[in-house]
């Protein structure tokens, strides 16, 4: 899903090639990396923060963080695996800052990751309510798998947990959905 097409044609170099080019001083590779992951970062940030303004701030901070690592950056995982915890942590910080400034005395969820979408209350979407009822750690893995389309190994690396733990959390999340009468229809053929 692309909010706005990049101004230059897509660059078909791999992430590794782009990183190598940047380390060698090819600043045009910044554009390629940025536009390749911009929308992914901003969508993820919005999911965490629930605010478009905060998501844009996180977008800027995320890429400032990434680009400060050049020259000399070594990509040891997929770019989304590397960026996920960065976006997550910046989003949590942004959300806390907004709540402090708003004088909101609502307690932050134990894990602000993967909170329910902003429209859940308004739309009374049962699926959204069911998802919001999942434990944060289970919901996060579920969304990383099916919204961010990350493989189990990537999720494990991004969250710094064993792959077995990822599978376990995913299993429990799916089982909870399957056993919930409000969304059981999705499991019926």
């Amino acid at each position: 899903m692309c909010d706005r097409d990049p101004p230059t044609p897509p660059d078909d170099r791999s992430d590794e090639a782009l990183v190598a080019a940047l380390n060698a001083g090819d600043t045009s590779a910044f554009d390629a990396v940025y536009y390749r992951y911009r929308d992914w970062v901003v969508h993820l940030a919005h999911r965490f923060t629930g605010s478009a303004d905060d998501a844009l701030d996180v977008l800027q901070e995320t890429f400032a963080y990434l680009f400060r690592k050049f020259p000399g950056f070594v990509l040891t995982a997929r770019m989304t695996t590397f960026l996920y915890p960065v976006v997550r942590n910046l989003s949590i910080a942004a959300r806390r800052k907004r709540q402090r400034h708003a004088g909101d005395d609502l307690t932050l969820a134990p894990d602000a990751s993967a909170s329910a979408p902003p429209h859940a209350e308004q739309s009374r979407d049962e699926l959204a309510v069911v998802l919001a009822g999942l434990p944060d750690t289970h919901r996060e893995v579920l969304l990383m798998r099916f919204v961010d389309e990350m493989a189990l190994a990537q999720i494990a690396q991004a969250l710094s947990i064993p792959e077995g733990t990822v599978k376990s959390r995913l299993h429990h999340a799916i089982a909870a959905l399957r056993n919930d009468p409000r969304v059981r229809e999705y499991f019926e053929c």
Partner: protein
Amino acid sequence: MAGFDPNPDATDQDLPPRLRDAIARMHRVEVPVPVELDQTILADAKRSFLGRRRAWMLIGRLSIGIATAALVAIAVRVFVAAPSSHPPTAMVQPPKLYQIADVNHDGRVDILDAYIVARTIARHEPLDPAWDINGDGVVDQKDVDLIATLAVRAAREPPQ
């Protein structure tokens, strides 16, 4: 980005397609990114990158220069230098060239003097005309190299 992997690791690791799509649609909220923000992010990145790259190149050059000078000094000391009758702290009036090359005025010419001049050049800071060691009218890398050479010679024997 890579598409969804239809081959999960286990049968209980997947969702029905309809549910998967519903969850994905729910979380893909459109967030327009202003073009000005794109430009700001990229401009900031390139600007700070170029500054860091210059610093890295300088560090690389200096590292090579310092390492080379150190190796030469060690080799000379081990294989060539004869014991000098002058103790290291002897008060010997150094020739004018060594006086000029002693940039930090610590009484000796060493690689630190070369580094000071190199760093000042790299930072585009004002250069002391007195650092024109080779007398060609300009303070540049050639003067840095000459200071390094003098430092090696000074390590071999005190200047006369």
